[in-house]
């Protein structure tokens, strides 16, 4: 009982699967994780890292599911009926945003257009744009935003199609200096999986999330 309680309160997700991939038990962190990733995907991951015979296998690998990143995985089984997965959470990648004198008003659609027209100048890429044009001019660090978008386009310049979606995230807010700000998401997606290295984008005031074929940049709507 004590160990079950301990696992329930653990900050790292824990899932116990049966031999068919059905979840037999999991903690609250795992429940949160299951909002972003399916049980099937996690079960496949478990099988992929399971040891050849009974026992525990620990690997230091970087995994990212939406906003959560993990630095290690532990898979263990001692019989044919059950297998356990435990992921080790990295310190949150969401960074506190600091509003400083570099924040200036700009139109994000203009900035995206500028970045697109310079980085993808001679590239034959089909780009579909879905913009919520009701988004007003906002205050942001223009230089940092452009450098980040440039980096994203540079990493995507071998892809034949990109969809860019700019929208307001409903129900999510960013708290900066005790003030609540709506979040604007800029989403770059492709029909195919994307090779993207979030570490190449050095951003102090922007949050980037990457999952398979979607790169999402989130910025607070500071007017």
């Amino acid at each position: 009982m004590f160990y079950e309680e301990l696992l329930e309160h653990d900050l790292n997700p824990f899932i116990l699967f049966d031999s068919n991939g059905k979840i037999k038990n999991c903690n609250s962190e795992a429940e949160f994780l299951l909002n972003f990733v399916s049980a099937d995907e996690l079960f496949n991951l478990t099988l992929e890292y399971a040891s050849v015979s009974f026992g525990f296998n620990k690997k230091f690998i970087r995994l990212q599911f939406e906003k959560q990143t993990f630095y290690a995985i532990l898979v263990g089984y001692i019989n044919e009926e059950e297998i356990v997965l435990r992921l080790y959470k990295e310190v949150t990648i969401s960074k506190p945003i600091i509003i400083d004198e570099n924040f200036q008003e700009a139109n994000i659609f203009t900035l995206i257009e500028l970045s697109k027209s310079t980085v993808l100048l001679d590239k034959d890429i089909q780009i579909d744009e879905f913009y919520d044009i009701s988004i007003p001019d906002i205050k942001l660090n223009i230089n940092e935003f452009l450098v980040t978008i440039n980096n994203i386009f540079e990493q995507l310049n071998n892809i034949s199609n990109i969809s860019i979606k700019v929208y307001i995230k409903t129900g999510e807010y960013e708290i900066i200096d005790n003030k609540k700000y709506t979040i604007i998401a800029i989403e770059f997606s492709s029909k195919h999986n994307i090779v993207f290295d979030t570490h190449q984008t050095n951003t102090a005031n922007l949050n980037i999330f990457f999952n398979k074929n979607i790169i999402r940049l989130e910025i607070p709507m500071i007017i």
Partner: protein
Amino acid sequence: MDKFITQSPISKQIKKSAILSMNLPVNTLIIGEQGVGKKLLAQEILPNSTAFYAKELEQLIISKHIDLKEYSSIIIYHLEDVINIDEFLQHLTNIKIVATTNQKLTKYNTIFAVKIEIPSLSQRNEDLQKLIEIYTQEALNIYNLSKGDIDNTKLDLNGNGITLKQSIFKHIVLQSMSQKDILSILESYLYKQLQKNKTYKELLSIFEIPLLKASIKAFKSQLKISKQLAINRVTLRKKLHNYFGEL
């Protein structure tokens, strides 16, 4: 010419990027080979700003002969000429910069949030044709000619707009020459050669090579050439043999 030419789709897009970056508080780096229009584009982004050659500005900063606080924006040509670019750019942190370079300089991605790469003229055919038209007209006006034939295959694009203009002007100058001009040039040339102790026989090629080249172009066959020039066919063949490789 005072405007960046925008006849090709790619240069239209480049101009669009330049306009979008005009009012943004970010630095722009314009990359391209010699003569592609980097300076013109820089001047369109910052039309009222002072322009410096990077090397010259570096010297002014080192010798403290410039007060950078007086400038809110500047244009810098040939950034690649600066020895220590990092240190140089640190002096300019509060100034909006539009710099030009013929090198990629990927290291400075965070300093230059806008990077515009201008392709060579050979990749922008519509711009090339427009420039040929502009430079030809300019040359015709200067030499007071009404018409000039430009052989596009003889145009030099190695230095893009710079060598293109030079080769067009050369074409037009040659077409504008009278017999008197040619004799005068020859006289001047021969005088210099005589200082080098050249003989009559050595200098004869100056006259014979163009004559034979023009004859081949006009008559094709040796029979017709010898007939027209009224020289013996054996003599003609001997001369063609002597100048083989130069004709």
